């Protein structure tokens, strides 16, 4: 098992948002987590990535059998966890390529593998940038600074391509994207999926799932997974809306 979440309770500023969540993810799987605003989707992503403001009050998360909650965010990243941010942060003054090489080399160092010098790394970067149709101009610019919404999201997927995570959590990567940008991002993700990694797609809408086919769909409401199924569940949800699922679950 790559990731196992058991009875997770978590929140921020003393407010509980995740209220007993269970989820198991195996290598090679794509899980979509859908839910209305405020259901705890982004909180789950941030807890997995180790955001310092979020507090876990109960339950456990095992990643490759190890206690994830004891690991710092940077340790998690080096161990293969990657979160694509809903709102990627701008880092003025640091170029995209400098930043990516630094992150890449930190990981290589951790794995006891050889670090790349700027020339070697640029070769790798050029190759990976094609995945999300990014030009070298983007690589020279400061990280996310002045990027459009779509460019920021593509940059997140580029980072994912460089870091090759074992577990990628895409937090509303589809939000704010037009159809072209959505297609580029989805194609990038599809090329990165393989039998050795897993992806958790967090999304409000079904449309991303037209491009990235999930193996499982989970509906999150009020901090709990209230229904799990296959991709047909997402289509049904799209047709009937979140009220249907809420009403439905109340009867159960």
């Amino acid at each position, binding site marked *: 098992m790559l990731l196992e979440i058991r009875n997770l309770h978590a929140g921020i500023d003393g407010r509980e948002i995740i209220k007993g969540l269970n989820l198991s993810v195996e290598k090679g799987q794509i899980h979509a987590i859908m839910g209305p605003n405020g259901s705890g989707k982004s909180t789950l992503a941030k807890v997995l990535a180790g955001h310092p403001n979020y507090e876990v009050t109960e339950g456990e998360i095992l990643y490759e059998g190890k206690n994830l909650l004891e690991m710092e965010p*940077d340790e998690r*990243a080096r161990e293969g966890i*990657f979160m694509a941010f809903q709102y*990627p*942060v701008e880092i*003025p003054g*640091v170029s995209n390529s400098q930043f990516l090489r*630094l*992150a890449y080399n930190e990981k290589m160092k951790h794995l006891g593998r050889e670090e790349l010098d700027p020339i070697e790394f640029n070769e790798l970067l050029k190759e990976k940038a094609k995945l999300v149709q990014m030009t070298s101009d983007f690589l020279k610019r*400061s990280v996310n600074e002045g990027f459009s919404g779509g460019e920021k999201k593509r940059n997140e997927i580029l980072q994912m391509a460089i870091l090759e995570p074992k577990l990628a959590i895409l937090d509303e990567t589809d939000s704010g994207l037009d159809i072209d940008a959505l297609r580029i991002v989805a194609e990038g993700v599809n090329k990165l999926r393989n039998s050795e990694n897993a992806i958790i797609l967090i999304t409000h809408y079904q449309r991303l799932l037209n491009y990235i086919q999930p193996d499982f769909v989970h509906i999150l409401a009020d901090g709990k997974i209230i229904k799990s199924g296959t991709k047909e569940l997402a289509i049904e949800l799209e047709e009937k809306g979140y009220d249907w699922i809420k009403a439905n679950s109340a009867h159960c």
Partner: protein
Amino acid sequence: MQVKRETVYNEIFRISASQTNQPEWLKELRTEALSFFSEVGFPSVEDEEWKYTNVAPIARETFQYDFKVESKISEETISKFVLEEAKKSFLVFLNGRFRPEFSNAQSLADVKIASFTQAFNDPDLQKTLQQKLGSLVDYRKNGFTALNTAFIEEGLFLFIPRDKIIESPIQLVFLTENEKIAFPRCLIVMEEGSEATLIESYNRNQEGKYFTNAVIEISIANEAKLKHYRVQRESHNSFHVTTTCAEVQCGSVYDSTNITLGAKLSRHDVIAIFKAEGGQAFVDGLYLVSGEQHSDTHSVIDHVFPNCLSRQNYKGIVDGKARAVFNGKIFVRENAHGTDAQQSNKNLLLSNEARVDTKPQLEIFNDDVRCSHGATVGQLEEEEIFYLMSRGLHHSLAENLLTYGFAEEIVNKIEVDSLKSQLDEALLNRLKAKL
């Protein structure tokens, strides 16, 4: 205390003045400046302009003054501080004196370069020198400008004739030995339509205690353009005070970038005055201090004439127990309609004991203007640190990288490649970051 230190400077002045063959007008100027200094002494914290910077450590110290042209600094040492792009366009100051024999001006054939002594022997240059020297920086500004003026000996007069475009950056290399006091003095006159890049670099040769007290006067005629990079990287045990004043004429551009990394106690007064319509001034800077360093920048941008543009972007990074002061005044005079002025001072505090005192000031006496100013003092953003950590960077590396990024906006302005990469390296080393 007061009596003792004045006696010291009076005594060295008496010897210095008795040795020179300077023209009468300069002897008079020097004598007046000394008597002004004797009257006012060094500034005190009771003076509003020096409220946050206590110069008592300078006043207390006794330094040695070079009466003769002598120093133990070798050509080899000097060459370490010469930038790649300026190998044939650097001018050297040792212990405050301009030393043509250590300089190389091969690619500056279009520039008139003279020590003050050389300029006295050239009727044209002498006339301009007499007219301009001390006209931009009044010795009565404070005790430091008075003292510098009193000790004008071998300064540099740089004259860029009409329409000359100087391709090579002109580097002024300042080196001062331990225990010495240096009074560098430069007058830079640019005629109409000329263009040049000036690098004013104060360097650390030894980690000792010494005192540099400089005055740089710059006159930029109509349609002339100067890019001015000032880099202060003196010994962390030294004292440094500089007053820079640039006058900007019709359609001329003064673009300055001031980097402060060195000295134990430093003060930079930078003044840009618009003397005609349609000038532009960019007065930007970065101060990065740590340990027990103290850095003070006082700037004045004076919109005397209409339709001039000024931009000021100063950034500060303060670590350890260091302290930084920024005071930026923009004056828009009654007549100066159509003024466009912006000022920003952003500071990053990296420790709980670091301190910044910032005071941006706009004084506007005309309604038809566009002006804005602002100052911030803050710490690194938690979200930014988390973002970098989530990509596998250790907490300290994330912090250092963000700090570097904060500074880069200023360093990126520098168009002399080797200077820019030197500063990048210095910043990264200092922050223990890497790229």
